[in-house]
């Protein structure tokens, strides 16, 4: 698992590579804690290279969103594989997150 953080159009875009599961979730949370400490207002997370997400991974994303909302920050998830998107639907989390098909679209429409 790896997290790559880039700046694009005054936005923070994060690329996660690999699995988000019980073993990697604590590291992902740590990576985002730095951004949250800086109160980054808008984050786009590109999940194109994520092959698997388990419950702890979902919970970690919820926790990051929760922490961002304390200072009015917003998060968008993009490029989700079909399998992972259906996981968000089963767990009824698709309404909690802003899920956008494509990264470019998410960036240009992120106002």
């Amino acid at each position, binding site marked *: 698992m790896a997290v790559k953080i880039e700046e694009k159009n005054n936005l923070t875009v994060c690329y996660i590579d690999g699995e988000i599961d019980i073993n990697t*979730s604590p590291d992902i949370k740590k990576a985002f804690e730095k951004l949250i400490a800086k109160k980054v207002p808008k984050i786009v997370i590109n999940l194109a290279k994520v092959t698997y997400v388990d419950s*702890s991974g979902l*919970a970690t994303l919820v926790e990051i969103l929760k922490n961002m909302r304390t200072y009015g920050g917003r998060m968008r998830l993009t490029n989700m594989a079909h399998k992972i998107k259906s996981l968000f639907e089963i767990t009824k989390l698709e309404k909690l997150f802003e899920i956008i098909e494509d990264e470019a679209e998410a960036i240009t429409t992120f106002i």
Partner: protein
Amino acid sequence: MDTEKEVIISARNVVKKFGERAVLNGITLDIYRGETFVIMGGSGCGKSTFLRHLIGALKPDSGKVSVLGKDLSGLDEDALDAVKKKIGMCFQSAALFDSMTVGENVSLPLREHTKLDRSVIDIVVKMKLEMVGLRGFEDLMPSQLSGGMRKRVGLARAIVMDPEIIFYDEPTAGLDPIVAGVIDKLILDLSKKLSITSVVVTHDMKSVFSIADRVAMLYEGRVLEVGESDTVKNSKNPMVRQFIAGSPDGPIKFFQQKDDYLEQLIK
């Protein structure tokens, strides 16, 4: 149905004796990934004992049990623990820890086995309790819950580590028909939505045919019949037919006395 099915659990000629009495007389079964497999049979047919072999709680006297591709009897404690973390088990009595709240019960494996933060664990617990319809019950003690609710908490605890296989021991025993139906629906939901393999031990005929993809019937420690749910339902085997119909008369005898009753009275 897929043409190529991956075997996730395999039992080969499993024999188990308690003292002189043979409980399992050579059971051979394959269970495939993603299916709901029901093991049925009368009391004392060895189905619970067989289940204990699949979760690594008992070791066979001879024969082999493989779960997730690993031969259980050949594993050391650490390797066995690694397999155990990938399976979940729902007990007949729910087996909740009395000294812990519902939330603590569900979160225990996460708290002890992972490095997740408390806040993340709390979210996972909420998600799992939502799946079994018990969100908001985190702070109750198990003694404050009804039987059906306890079973659902047990189910939430069994799936908290995202297992690949869930085992159910008599999930509907002792529940009223509506609650039993709710549990059956939960089992179906979990296995279909999350594509978890489910292995259910039961003698509740109503739930067998509403949840099972495939069914095995055990009798006196042997596999009497195994096959697709409908095949077993329309089986020609008189023993299977008697069991499904629940009739007292048939090849399976419940009264087996050696002495003559009248002779014993006047002896």
